């Protein structure tokens, strides 16, 4: 679904990508893992036709990103690092705007359906400026699903979100892949890749240094020693239990 070979990109003197190879199978979730500045966003921008590579080839849904940019844009949807939503419009208007730009019939119905799927129906008529970070991100992802593009790029979809919003986003991503969408996501959170991805690639200093399933990556290290450790709840468990209990009561 996504084939990348020998991708190179420099910004002035700085070599960001030094030959990246990736292969993503249809309907799978592929995580591109790397620290800040590793070049994850550059890969995503090249694949979504926003940047041109200096060397190498990249095909998305069978189309070459440089030569067939228009066809690639028909096949993809990008959720960038910062929520690309219109603050002055309402959530529903944002969805309708994208539906119209994708030339769909019945944009209002498309919008209402997505608002329901992302539990934004009540907030739908409010301006996005009043939304919380998690709601914005959900709307952002909902906007990316319009027109059901076969490939979705999510660039650091949960950076800056609180734990609950993160889990909501994860849920949404999992459902996407279940529906047959190919997802390429970048993240700097190891647990995120662990939770979501069918395959994980680590991008380091402009190259993919490892690429495999979680089990394959784990096998790279010496076999696990068995130790008995008292199971303590993590702070995340505590937080989610307390906050979750309260939210349930409110509903």
């Amino acid at each position, binding site marked *: 679904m996504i084939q990348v070979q020998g991708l190179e990109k420099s910004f002035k003197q700085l070599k960001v990508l030094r030959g990246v190879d990736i292969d993503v199978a249809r309907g799978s979730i592929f995580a591109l893992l790397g620290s800040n500045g590793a070049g994850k966003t550059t890969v995503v921008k090249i694949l979504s036709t926003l940047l041109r590579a200096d060397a190498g080839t990249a095909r998305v849904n069978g189309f070459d990103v440089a030569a067939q940019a228009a066809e690639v844009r028909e096949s993809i949807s990008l959720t960038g690092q910062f929520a690309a*939503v*219109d603050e*002055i419009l309402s959530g529903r208007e944002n969805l309708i705007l994208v539906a119209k*730009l994708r030339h769909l019939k019945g944009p209002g119905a498309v919008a209402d359906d997505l608002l329901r799927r992302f539990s934004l129906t009540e907030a739908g008529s409010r301006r996005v400026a009043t939304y919380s970070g998690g709601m914005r991100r959900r709307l952002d992802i909902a906007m990316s699903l319009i027109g059901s593009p076969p490939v979705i790029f999510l660039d650091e979809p949960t950076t800056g979100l609180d734990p609950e919003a993160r889990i909501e986003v994860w849920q949404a991503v999992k459902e996407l892949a279940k529906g047959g969408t190919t997802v390429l996501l970048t993240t700097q959170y190891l647990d995120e890749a662990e939770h979501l991805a069918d395959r994980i690639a680590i991008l380091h200093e402009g190259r993919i240094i490892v690429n495999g399933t979680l089990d394959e990556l784990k096998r790279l290290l010496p076999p696990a020693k068995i130790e008995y450790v008292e199971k303590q709840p993590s702070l995340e468990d505590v937080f989610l239990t307390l906050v979750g209990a309260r939210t349930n009561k409110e509903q």
Partner: protein
Amino acid sequence: MNKHFVGDTAVLLGRSLRHIARSPDTIITTAIMPIAFMLLFVYVFGGAIETGTDSYVNYLLPGILIITIASGISYTAFRLFLDLKGGIFERFQSMPIARSSVLWAHVLTSLVANLISLVVVTGVALIMGFRTGAGVSGWLAVAGILVLFTLALTWIAVIPGLTAKTLDGASAFSYPLIFLPFVSSAFVPTQSMPGPVRAFAEHQPVTSIVNAIRDLFTQQPVGADIWIALAWCVGILVLAYLFANVTYRRRIS
């Protein structure tokens, strides 16, 4: 041309017009400065200015309309800059839409917003005693010049909107444009100015545009001024359009 150009432009125009409808302050702030200038010059300085006409507000209005446009177009740079910063610009660029629609929607929005501001300012001038015997064709000619001038300046505004690093930088470019009318025939006849200033004033675009509009309002024969005015407008429009598109293509590739 992309088959979706008209449809996509209309959708994006609808979006920007909704922005304006929800923050009408952009139209009010655009109209307030020219109205303040008009009040100041008509009721404070006007008595001391010798224009050779009996009504100073009649003399002044064309220049005030030019100032209105010059201050209004900075919002195009402002809105474009915010789209680029906010990430929605990248979303549009990664979608299967006609790419030039993104710019055209902002340009047409500027045209609509400036026309509203111009109507407001003209309304205030009418209250202050502005009168013209111009008929429908005269008004249409004035409107045509103002539309051309707005389009020309708006395409200039697109350039800082695409290239600015900060919000202040995106709108600061319009200050010289606002002050250009002061060194023209907009407020006082150029004959009263010392040599070099007069030479500049008589050969810059605002003077010919102001003179042409003034002649249309007072039903004088417009003479060469209207052709010079049109040449300036079209020349600036074409250059700014080409340069803005080069900047845009550089920005998106």
